[in-house]
């Protein structure tokens, strides 16, 4: 099938097999390897992207379902060198270690804050529970999302 998808501001038209998942289309056809696959049961959320501004697990969307839609991946968030507040907060709060879950975490946090700009810690914890991380124990991820919402002071550490 022929589909046309706008990804990170560029419009691509490709032939895809109907069974192709959006995440495989992004990674293998478009080279958007910043988005990763962490499981096969849509539990881990590592593949989370925005479709028309809302977060979706791209392993749970067929490429053909993205036809005519706009997709934003982790590679399309920053404006040149300028990071988004969520990206900046993840770095500042040490909310990532190996970084494999990070693209999904950042995309999910972006969606969470766009629908709820001032979440409580509890709302952050429930809003992010579809994304698994094995490194951080979530402590700093939650902190980063709260910080990105402008609700908590930075940790007071020195900036590098």
């Amino acid at each position, binding site marked *: 099938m022929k589909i046309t998808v706008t990804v990170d501001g560029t419009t691509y038209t490709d032939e895809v*097999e109907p069974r192709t998942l959006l995440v495989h289309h992004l*990674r293998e056809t478009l080279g*958007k*390897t*910043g*988005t*990763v*696959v*962490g*499981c*096969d*049961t849509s*539990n*881990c959320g*590592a593949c989370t992207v925005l479709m028309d501004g809302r977060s979706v697990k791209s392993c749970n969307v067929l490429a053909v379902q993205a036809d005519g839609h706009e997709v934003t*991946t*982790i*590679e399309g*968030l*920053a404006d040149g060198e300028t*990071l988004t507040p969520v*990206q900046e907060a*993840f*770095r*500042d709060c*040490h909310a*990532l*270690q*190996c*970084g*494999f*879950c*990070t*693209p999904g975490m*950042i995309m999910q946090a972006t969606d969470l804050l766009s629908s709820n700009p001032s979440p409580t*810690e509890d709302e*952050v*914890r*429930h809003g*992010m*529970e*579809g*994304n*698994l*991380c*094995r*490194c*951080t*124990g*979530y*402590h*700093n*991820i*939650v*902190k980063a999302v709260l910080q990105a919402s402008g609700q908590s002071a930075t*940790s007071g*550490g*020195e*900036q*590098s």
Partner: protein
Amino acid sequence: MTAVDDRPQAASTHEVGRDRRRKEDQRLITGRTKWTDNLVLPGMLHLAMVRSPLAHARITGIDATAAREAPGVIAVLTGEDVKDLQGSLPCAWPITEDQKAPPHPAIAVDRVAFSGEVVAVVAARSSAAARDAAELVDVDYEDLPAALELRASAQDETLAHPDLGTNRSATWVFDSAEAGTGSDVEDAIAEADVVVEREFRQQRLIPAFMEPRSTVVDPTGEQFVMWSATQVPHILRLMLAMTLGVDEGKIRVIAPDVGGGFGGKLQVTPEEIITFLVARHTGKPCKWTETRSESLLSAHHGRDQWQKLTLAAKADGTVTGLKVELLADMGAYLGLVTPGVPILGAFMYNSIYKFPAYHFSCTNVFTNKTWTDAYRGAGRPEATFAIERIMDELALELGRDPMEVREQNWITHEEFPFTTVCGLEYDSGNYEAATERAKELFGYDELRAEQQRRRESGDRVQLGLGISTFTEMCGLAPSRVLGSLNYGAGGWEHASVRMLPTGKVEVITGSSAHGQGHETAWSQIVADQLGVPFEDVEVLHGDTQISHKGLDTYGSRSLVVGGQAVINAAKKVIEKAKPLAAYQLEANVDDLEFSDGKFTVKGAGADQEGVGLAGLALAVFAAHDLPDGMEPSLDADATFDPVNFSFPHGTHLCAMEVDTETGATTMRSYVCVDDIGNVVNPLIVEGQVHGGLVQGIAQALWEEAVYDDQGTLVSGSFVDYTLPTTADTITFVTDRTTSPATSNDLGVKGVGEAGCIASTPAVVNAVLDAIRQFGVKDIVMPCTPERVWRAIQDGTAGAMSETAGAAAGHFAEGEPNQDPPGTGAAPAAGTTQEGGQA
């Protein structure tokens, strides 16, 4: 912070100790990443494994005709095709001379020994084509009885490998009387006023790193190049050469971005061997990337032990002896360090306590399950869990506060350095300081008062407090010690520091980071050593052609071993630069001093310009005007072998709320005060602690690899293997005390495993503390709501027999679960409501 640092500080400490934001993150938060699965090479083939669905079976025939004819398929290889090429996967740690082990083929040839073992591999032009074709490989099996339950397997009721004649691989013993490091434990038990005997179950866990494993092999150049999601590129290269008989110089291994490991990628895997063999066979680059289900099924598991402890004490609570008897489930094969994992705990059961007598024995047992190997902490979480659980049991027997009993028995800070009953020398520590700080942050006394109020009012939600005062040995490891334990390699680490003509510095480390932040921390260390800006240091690692020598990252070793190697190399650079500096300054070498990146002449005043290292690097590059005989290079290598382990410790306190009507547990608060010596980057350290805590908490509450009675892993996806989420966890309170290590220049101790080693018993002790009042004596991990509820309902020691598979009864049928009569152990107040035995 309680500072007890009396060690000399490094000359310049601008960077070490700062919470620098990580250099690694810019790429990772913008998706500019290089995971192995991202690699695409011209003509690359994709592999799919055909795996056994049976735990134990003879392979009577494989028909791959349909698969070979499927669209896009280039090759299908079976065990028969590679049996003379694949060698046997390596085990680097035979723990005894008479250890028994079956050959470990990458592709099973005539028999499979666990569900998930590879029986064939398909190479095709796309991964979808490979997977489709793998479904077409028709394998005929003749079912064999499977050895599944650990204790039954130890009795050889069913043999996991009939040719071995037994499931018992080896028994390893340490006895303090025999070793001359302590007295005889049987005497201690015979003479004790109080004997506490308990059995604990360490359930089987799965490391569950977030990046599924992936391997790419390119056979098209002079060297075979393997990219792999591994913690151990250097070990992998050596083992590939030894296993396959390929010249080591013809293999290059690259660990690009690696998404977590936790010991789970400390392995030489069948799939790495297979990908290599298929690439060589086809002459094409080949890629294998696992699915998550494959990962949970076939990547090595961790833990899985039965632990029997006998603790002897005087009536006043002074401990007099500890006897530890373990059964450890190897699974079907011995992986890279499988047999040594429980032995890494052998010297840690005595923990921070002054046991005069100690005996440890461990029998390693084969079963027809996925093989076990290192998982974060490897042997030491098991030890810490058991000793911290039984110290609570001792307090219970004595009717005393569990912290008080610990304090009575631990090594006091004046007693360091302290030689333990195992013969290890703990160099530094201060258990009192960490505990005092933790109790203060926790509000220990207030929480105890609340607990009492809730008990008295019969509150539906009961509160329990759990303690874990842990220590661990890490920084693996002094090579001589490893040699004495029959480990196949040393424990040194290598580093190079290269001065570039631009004045920038390249640091090459044999450590292989996969989330630990080495690029940042090593930059901080080198910036201080050489007086160059943090930003001017580039850290290179994870490629055997760049970092030609190393022993990689595991066992909380990178900073204490690898970091010291970096320091030693940097010091050599300064020494090499000195003659040139003296030459340029027209001074005597002995009159020079080096600080903040430049050489100056002693006593020549503060306003002298001196010569900077960057300028010297350029002069050496040009090499136009050097002192006679000087080699035109400032670069230096160093290989550091530690003289001792490092011994982090800490006090972890956990408050758990238990809903007595539903069995649901909620973590109310968790405080930990860790002493890991000096700290290079507190931000990174806290991250390591948080992550470790949650892995340990997950063992206590949620995670378990469960097999059914056919030997099939039923927790084979993230639906069933329940990693915690943001919604399950809380914000932690962490702090540190500082007793610098004496075994390295920085005074640092390892931190990668500490949280995971410490947290599990704190949580279980807290859950039990909440519900012991109902007659509950123990709960097998994970303490799921169902188990907690059943325990409360039955008022028994666990009441687990109703749950399936690995959730087996905690105590063997017909065996007493109580202290032998006549040991003087009286039930403590508040625990008189004795329950029945399971």
